[in-house]
Structures are given as C-alpha cells and as structure tokens.
C-alpha cells in the first residue's frame, strides 16, 4: 500500500489557481523529486502537505488514513491538524532556525514540548529529557555537526544551518520528509555538504519529497521524478524516463534551458 496518496488537489490564491488537479502517490522508502520552473506550484504542493495551506479541493491520505478531505470539515479542525502535521517534516529553503536557541536546543525544542503532553511526563521528566537529548546529539552527529551543537544559528554557515534544520525535522521522526529547495539559499560551495546528507538519508530508506533545482542530484537520488508546470503534473516517471527521454515538449524545453545555464 502506498504511504502517501494525494488526489485531485486544487488550490487558489484569490483568482490565481496555483494547483490544478494534482494527484500522485508514494511508496514507503521512495524518494520523489519535484522539478519545474518557479511558479509552477511545487512549493504550494509541499505547503499543502504540511497543512500550511488548506487545499480548496482534494484528499490527502497517509498509510490509508484520510488526513485531509476538502469535502469533509471534520478533517480540518485546527486541534487535529497539529497532530496530523507530525506525519510530515518540512525543511525550508531559508532554514527558519530559531535564532535564540543553540543548534542542540533547536533540535530538542519541539520534541520536549510534545513530551509535556505525555501522561507519564511528570514522573519520567528527567529520563524523557535525557532520551530527547541523546537523540538530538546523535542526529547532529549524523549530520557531521558534533562540534557545533552549542553554537547559535548566526555562528553557523548556511550549509551547517540547513543540516541543523534537517536534524530538527528528523527529531520528530516523520513518515515523510519534505524539502523545499533546500540548497537554493546556499552558496554553491556549500550545497555539496547538504546534498550529501540528503543522499545518506535516501540510502537509509527515508521516504522523502524533494523540491529542487539541482537536476543532476535529482537524477541521482530519486526513485521517481515529477515535472510540474502551471499547476499541473505534466510528466512523471523514473529519472531516466523524465530526464533522458521526456515525452512532453514543455519538459524538453525546461530541461534544455537548465542544461544551457
């Protein structure tokens, strides 16, 4: 069974229709890259999955459970949406780390706040705190940041910040991890370290959706590539299908523009 099913998503901002009937599905452990020019609706799609936007029409299912159905208001209650968001993690283009916390605190904060809701929180406070900290330390070590844990975001490079942000998203152990152009805000020499980390996650069978402009990276890491244009999914398939023998004229043109850059 597919881990994620997205069916007939529509989203408009005012009169501009940004997503026009988007459907796709994803198997557990798969990596899908979404490519396309700016304004094609890629980022909006990710924001819909993370409930930062509410689709006007459509259904989102995770592990067969309907998380969102535009036709069913009971799936849109603010209190439930908070829990539903935890199925997804999101890594932002501009990191959005919390500047007043250290790298370690950034990774721990959300998990600690969630732990306060556990029924046995009071009794196991110290133990829980220790577990959360151990997990955060191991995540940051995995990101190659063992020497940077107590630094504040402004003391870190862009690439390091983005790796902290990835660790922060992983800390909540999401079913599906989303990346919104994770290297677009970075200097070219820093993109490598972030892409390397994402590649490792892919090798460890994390289910991921990556919106990216790094075509060679998408080709290398993805199981599936989706090409979006003007709010539609125009073409979809394995990397070799989409990159090497695209069917649509628009896809060919887009890829050509990219290669000539």
């Amino acid at each position, binding site marked *: 069974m597919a881990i994620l099913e997205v069916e007939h998503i529509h989203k408009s901002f005012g009169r501009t229709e940004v997503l026009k009937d988007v459907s796709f599905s994803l198997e557990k452990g798969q990596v899908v890259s979404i490519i396309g020019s700016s304004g094609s609706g890629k980022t909006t799609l990710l924001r819909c999955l993370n409930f930062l936007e509410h689709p006007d029409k459509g259904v989102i299912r995770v592990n067969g459970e309907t998380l969102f159905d535009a036709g069913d208001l009971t799936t849109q209650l603010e209190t439930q949406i908070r829990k539903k968001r935890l199925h997804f993690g999101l890594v*932002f283009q501009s990191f959005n780390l919390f500047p007043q916390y250290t790298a370690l605190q950034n990774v721990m904060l959300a998990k600690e706040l969630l732990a306060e809701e556990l029924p046995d929180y009071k009794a196991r406070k110290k133990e829980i705190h220790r577990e959360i900290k151990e997990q955060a330390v191991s995540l940051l070590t995995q990101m190659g940041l063992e020497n940077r844990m107590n630094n504040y975001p402004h003391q870190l490079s862009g690439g390091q910040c983005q790796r902290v942000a990835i660790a922060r998203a992983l800390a909540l152990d999401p079913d599906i991890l989303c990346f919104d152009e994770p290297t677009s805000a970075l200097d070219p020499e820093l993109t490598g370290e972030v892409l390397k980390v994402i590649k490792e996650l892919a090798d460890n069978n994390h289910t991921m959706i990556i919106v990216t402009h790094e075509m060679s990276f998408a080709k290398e890491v993805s199981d599936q590539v989706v090409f979006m244009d003007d709010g539609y999914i125009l073409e979809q398939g394995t990397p070799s299908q989409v990159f090497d023998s695209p069917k649509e004229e628009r896809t060919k043109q887009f890829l050509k523009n990219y290669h000539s850059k």
Partner: protein
Amino acid sequence: MELMLEQFPIVVQSLNVGFLQTLKLFFATLIGAVPLGLIITFGSMSRFKPLSFITKIIVWIVRGTPLMIQLLIFYYFPGLVLGKPIWGSGETGRFFAAAVAFIFNYACYFSEIYRGGIQSVPVGQEEAGLVLGMTKSQIFFKVKLLQMVKRIIPPMSNEIITLVKDTSLARIIALQEIIWAGQAFLKGSQGISGAIWPLFFTGVYYLIFSGILTVLLGRLEKKLDYFR
C-alpha cells in the same frame, strides 16, 4: 553664592519630595502601560474587524492629540460635563488622574512598538513552529516573544526616557512633581522667593535618573546580543 548655600538644604528637601512624585508617576505609568499596550496590540491586530477598527481609532486619537490636553480631559471632564468629580480634589486624586492619563497615552505608543516587533518576526518562524507540531501559544512564548523583545528594546528605551521628562506635564493639573517644586521658589515658598536656580537644578535630577535608566536598558539590550 552665600545665599544659595543657605537655601540649598531647604530647596533640595523640597525637590526630593517633588521628585518622589515624579518617580511614582513614572513607575505607575510603566507598570500599567507595558501590559495594557500588549492588550491594545492584540486589539488592533485582531481579525475581528470592528474591534481592530475601534482600537485603531482610539490609538489614532491618543497619539494624535497632546498629552497635556488628555490630562486636562481626564481630570476635569468628569466634573465639568458629568457633574461628578470622580478623582477628588486632593493630591491623591490628581495623582490617579495623571497616572490613568499617562498609562493610557503610553500604552497606545507601546502598542505600536509591540505591533512593529511582532510583525518584524519573519513568518518563517511561525511556520517552522507549526510544522514541528507546536501550538500557537507555544510558538508565541517559546519562539517569537524573545525575538520580539529583542527588537523592541531600542524603541522602548526611547519612549521610556521620553516618559521620564513627560511626567512634568502632569503639573497642568497641579500635580506637584519636581518642576512644580522648583518653580515654587521663583514665586516664593518657605521663605525663599525669587530663587531661580532651583528650577534649573531640577534638570540634574532628570539627568541622573535618565542616565541610570540608559545604563540599565543598555545592559538589557546587551544581554540579548547573544543571538541575531
């Protein structure tokens, strides 16, 4: 010069009493206006249109008219128009009227500073909190508040220093703060008349007090320098 030395102890004692009143008004205003300002901010940023509209009108009126007139209205209006002087005539009543007018006035200024502070925290901070499963109030208190505070300290410091000096406006409703006390010796009081220096000497009190505040606020600002 000799005369001045003779007058000095009497004058200083009288100025101290006046300055105590100045300090009382200053702290009462601060304690009242800091939280009230936040309430006004939430009112003016409310998504419920009539509430935000009315709040904005009130803020516009309060910021658009001189504090001196507001003092006169707060103190005299109940007696003049309603026929019921609610404040009482004595020193305490005048102090309360002045404090209420000051709190209201400064809360409106603070609310605009808070609003700027809240709006200057990038949207991404809230979104990052949301996708990490935080509640709105957790996001406000754990993520946004400190960033807001950091951003509003410089403009708040300005307002607070201005408040120190603005307290002297309260003498329009005969609140006997330090300038009133200093001026009394010009007209004649406690056997000293035509003494000009006490009025100018009040400046020393203001200078020292605002100096202390500047240092304290500077320290607070520095304390939040650890992040950007």
